């Protein structure tokens, strides 16, 4: 469902000297490992078609894409409900279910910028899961999460991979061990 044909990633000039090719499908959890600044996030952006590759092409057969990173905006007047409902049709059952799974107990009328970083990170993940994605990109999803929440996230990824292709960058090797079906080293 996702195929990359000899892509060169980068902005004006390539980040890596060699090209990347690959074909991935549902059921896979691909963990990307590597130092800061080697191009893990850029690779994910290219796969999600958020950024064009310098050369080569990306084939993506679905537009149901989930994306978790630190770029999402908290706004000044965004409520928790705004945050998990703008642009997606999420039912109350779904919202309650994921809130329970991530053990967050907050009023949906609260403003998002009143939450702690950990709570906000969980909310970001929940928003993407409410989209019922077929491809899920997680760019360092464990940042700010406590030990218990990390375990919970690993469990959810295991369940989710039946219906979803998952890419994940992380520097947490234990977490990587728990979720991966394969690894790409940068």
């Amino acid at each position, binding site marked *: 469902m996702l195929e990359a044909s000899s892509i060169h990633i980068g902005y004006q000039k390539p980040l890596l000297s060699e090209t990347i090719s690959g074909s991935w499908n549902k059921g896979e959890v691909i963990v990307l490992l590597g130092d800061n600044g080697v191009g893990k996030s850029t690779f994910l952006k290219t796969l*999600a078609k*958020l950024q064009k590759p310098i050369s080569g092409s990306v084939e993506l057969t679905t537009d149901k894409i989930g994306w978790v990173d630190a*770029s*999402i905006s908290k*706004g000044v*007047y965004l409520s928790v*409900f705004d945050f998990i409902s*703008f*642009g997606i049709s999420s039912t109350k059952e779904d919202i309650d279910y994921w809130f329970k799974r991530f053990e967050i107990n907050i009023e949906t*009328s609260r403003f998002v910028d009143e939450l702690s970083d950990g709570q906000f990170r969980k909310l970001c993940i929940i928003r993407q899961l409410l989209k019922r994605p077929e491809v899920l990109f997680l760019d360092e999803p464990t940042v700010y999460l406590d030990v218990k929440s990390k375990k919970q996230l690993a469990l959810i990824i295991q369940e989710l991979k039946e219906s979803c292709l998952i890419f994940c960058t992380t520097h947490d090797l234990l977490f990587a061990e728990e979720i991966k079906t394969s690894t790409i080293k940068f």
Partner: protein
Amino acid sequence: MGTVTIDITKGFKEFNSVDGNILESRLIRASVSVLVGASCGLAGLGIQTLFKNPLAGPTTLGVNSGASLGVGIFYLIPGVSMQMEWLGLSFFAVLGALAFLFLLIVVAGKSLNLTFVLIVGLLLSYASYAILEVLLQLSDSVGIKSYVFWGMGSFTRANVHSLIALLLVSVMGIVVMKKYATWLNIYSLGDTELKLLTRKSITFNKQLLLIVFGIWIGLITSIVGPIAFVGVVVPNVLKMVIKSSNLNTLLPLTALLGAMMVLLADLIARGAIGGFVLPVNAVLSVLGVPIIIYFLVKRISGARS
């Protein structure tokens, strides 16, 4: 100027009588107040969403300064305001607003980087003030007086023509905002989310919305002067009260509250309460500033850094 008692039924029956004329001018003025209030609120809401800044407004974009410069040229250069005063004034203000908006888009480039736009808008404002200072030095006292009175905000120039123009532009603005409400909602979450969910050109939509807001604000400014302060107060208060930034909910509420606020301010300004005639801007500031300070302080102190 001043208070006069009229017979409303007589005014309706005999439209050419004195009572009829006063009734007509009052009705037009009230309608213009309502439209201006709703429009200021909505355009303010739109610009704040677009710039992701709760204090952004026509002033930030430099659109007000463009309109002011247009009006300045109209009043302060001798001979320009010879005939057709109101038509000439609107024309100059809208032209000024659009010229500045066009400059903004040209200078700030294709990407419309918002920080850059804000800086350019501010610089354009300074340039306009500089030119206006020079014009004020060179102008005669009649021109200066007209310009200063315009700057205080007033509904005395409102007539059927301005009402119709305002109605048309407001309808256009409301239709566009309604159509883009969901897009703007997602936009407030950031560009990544927008690209994932809509896959449409963000730059084109931003430019389109900026132009619509520019025309809207230019026209309002030309008719009643720079009273865009409403555009900052109303959306902030509403978002705080309903605890949401959902534009689909905010659009009707903003229009309603904006209309009420300006209608009330005009009522006070033209002496219906207390018997004094005051500039609308002064009344709006007295009403608005405490409210906005209260809400902003409450909101900002509630957030984690």
